[in-house]
């Protein structure tokens, strides 16, 4: 056992505790603001795991886009709507909903986990073209360069389509949340 292996071990398990603890926080917190903070903890844990797997650029994007933009959007909506008060979680509207959901979730994790453990040796081959890491290539931006070549080369059409998706999403949201003037609402029967 080398020191590097021990460090990897510590990093993996601390990040795993962050991820699972944050996730449990999201589903158990009574207050939506606390749940959003649990989500931040999970997202940071996932970013740490990305760094551990040499995906440095994705870790940065994870923090900026998820923890920066998406969680801020959640918090903004919570504050905008004023729903930041605690809810009573003891109410269970459908009688056996929670036991059934627990059975389904445990079954799902059990099945997927069994499949992962069984396929452990089958996936040991490495057919890809290789992932450039900073240590191998000698430059610090090897990961970014390789990702950029792949994204803007092989996947450039899909990349263009994502810009269409974002435009449609933004236009649709503006349309949905806009308060229409009374006369327009009457003539176009729009109640958004």
């Amino acid at each position, binding site marked *: 056992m080398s020191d590097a292996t021990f460090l990897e071990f510590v990093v993996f398990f601390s990040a795993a505790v962050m991820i699972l603890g944050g996730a449990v926080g*999201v589903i158990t917190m009574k207050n939506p603001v606390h749940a959003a903070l649990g989500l931040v903890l999970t997202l940071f844990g996932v970013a740490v795991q990305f760094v551990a797997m040499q995906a440095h650029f*994705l870790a940065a994007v994870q923090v900026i886009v998820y923890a920066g933009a*998406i969680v801020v959007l959640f918090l903004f909506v919570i504050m905008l709507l004023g729903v930041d008060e605690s809810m009573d979680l003891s109410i269970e*509207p459908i009688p056996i909903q929670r036991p059934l959901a627990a059975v389904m979730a445990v079954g799902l994790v059990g099945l997927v986990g069994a499949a992962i453990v069984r396929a452990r040796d089958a996936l040991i081959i*490495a057919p890809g073209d290789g*992932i450039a890491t900073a240590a191998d290539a000698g430059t610090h931006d090897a990961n970014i360069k390789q*990702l950029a070549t792949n994204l803007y080369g092989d996947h450039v059409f899909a990349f263009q389509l*994502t810009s269409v998706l974002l435009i449609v999403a933004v236009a649709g949201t503006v349309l*949905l949340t806009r308060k229409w003037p009374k006369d327009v609402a009457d003539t176009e029967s729009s109640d958004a």
Partner: protein
Amino acid sequence: MIAVIEPTWYLLLAAMLFGIGAFGLMVRRNPLIMFMCVELMLNAANLTFVAMATRLNDINGQTAVFFVLVVAAAEVVVGLGILVSILRRRPGATADDLAELKG
């Protein structure tokens, strides 16, 4: 004795994260929390993509995470837009109350 960290461990962690997200999505009634649970499940998928990229030594897995990120952003924007327009009309509505939408 400490084993070397393998991609299999990341996959198991992602499976657990997905399970927690799925459980929350089925149990919680606040639409905002349900969206957060969907984010948890998307993150589990991202973790799987990067773990498999490492295991298969293929950069395409990391590129796929970009597209998941874009879809997650678009989904949150549209979903929260719908939520704002619903809650503006009916304050305090839960996911169960929205069953009234059916004809």
